[in-house]
């Protein structure tokens, strides 16, 4: 579980803002909301074992189309899909 305070500490711009005082914190808070981070203190994360299981399941699907050769299609078209 990541605490909100830990997250704030992990982000350099936030640490700077703490030092500069309250005024800039007011700017930061709405930015966090905009990117979907709630002010709730904890985040849900599946366990490491669960994530391994999920990765296994995903890989069985991804194996079906595998690694495409970069030259298979025009690279400029990739992001037009």
């Amino acid at each position: 579980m990541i605490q909100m305070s830990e997250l704030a500490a992990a982000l350099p711009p936030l640490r700077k803002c703490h030092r500069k005082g309250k005024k800039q914190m007011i700017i930061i808070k709405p930015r966090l909301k905009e990117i979907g981070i709630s002010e709730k203190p904890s985040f849900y994360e599946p366990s490491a074992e669960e994530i391994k299981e999920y990765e296994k399941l995903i890989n069985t699907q991804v194996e079906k189309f595998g690694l495409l050769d970069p030259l298979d299609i025009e690279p400029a078209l990739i992001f037009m899909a």
Partner: protein
Amino acid sequence: MISSDPQSWTIESLSKALRKKEISPVEVTKVCLERINSYDSKINAFITVLPERALKTARQMEKEILKRKYRGPLHGIPYAAKDLFFTKGVRTTCGSKILKEFVPKYDATVISRLNSAGAILLGKLNMHEFAYGTTSVNPHYGPVRNPWNRERITGGSSGGSAAALVCSFALLTLGTDTGGSIRIPSALCGVAGLKPTFGRISKYGVYPLCWSLDHPGPMAKRVMDLAIALNILAGYDPHDPFSAQENVPNYQRALTKNLKGIRLGVPKEYYFDHLEGEVQQAVSQAIQELKKIGAKILPISIPHLPEFSAAAFISLLAEGAACLEKWHKTRAEDLGKDVLGRLNLGSAIKATQYLQAQRMRRIAQETFREVFTKVDALITPQLPIVAPSIGQETISIGDFTEGVASALTRFTRIFNLTGLPTISVPCGFSASGLPIGLQIVGQAFAEGTILKVGYAYQMNTNWHMRRPDLA
């Protein structure tokens, strides 16, 4: 004269009767509300019913007809919307506990269009939580029950939208389709459902699941009614960045009773693997019927279909996890177990895997572009199975066993990846009395062609006229 049996009403027949003043919008709305009141406790199609608002609008529509102000074929027609279409002042739960009290401040574009056309909103329909599932077994509002057998699922995620039509609670419903969510319940409940081309119908005010895969669309008892609704719903919307600036033809005018000159492709691979016997038989008969009414049937080979299906699956999981990330991270305890599992799975997808899936999407689009130089439409089974039981987790067909969700999306999700238009029409019933669906796929923005095929098929068969006994 309009029939006294509301089960036989269609938008086409009712709109003529309303215009001729054989019946009033208030009478029609009261009949629908009475049916909801009598039968929905058994089916659970609605999350919110709006009797006062519906009757108020109906009275307004009646006044206008009496003053000869006629808005068009949806004037006075009762409709209902899946509970993820924003409705100003009416709660929109998305089938979730998290948004139980969410009341939007504006109408989705499609809701505005239907209201302006004179249609009457009866309420908001039950669905799979956040549209992220194929059963409509909702942990917060209860399962939607299949009107043909209440122990079976309706399919999802637009389960309430299909059930409400079969029960004649409404004449038109709105659904959304991200991996099959309009077509699956349409097939399992025996109604007609249209997933239009990506960008054909506005997504403004529709709660998203996957930005590049979501398709809103109409559901109705008959294909003619889908055409009438699409005339109103289709068209460019500047509020939706994905909206297409494509010409909107008159879809009704394209409908004919025969299919002379139409080339229908039947895929040689993938779509006829692991099918229940009764489904195989019904679809084969439907293909023969289409041949009888003038279509040229062409077996066609389409490469890489399993790869396209896997790319659709990865895209859906990754985008779903991104779209619902906020709720996944902060309200996991309020999500249903199955939705939480899918979000966990989607979060474990790497950016490289998602991007390879998008490259596969491009190949899929090119492949189908090539296919549609040879045929005008494709015909496939809509689903490999009939409605499973509520709570059932796996399906066995011979030696082949798979999860219910996998079986229900195997034939549908490729067309979310490609964005191509498809409709589902009923094409038979199993010995146990459960509907079987036929999928008709067209090239981009060729909704007119697939509606024409579906309409001609319905004019020469009567599967769409069967109704369940609700007593």
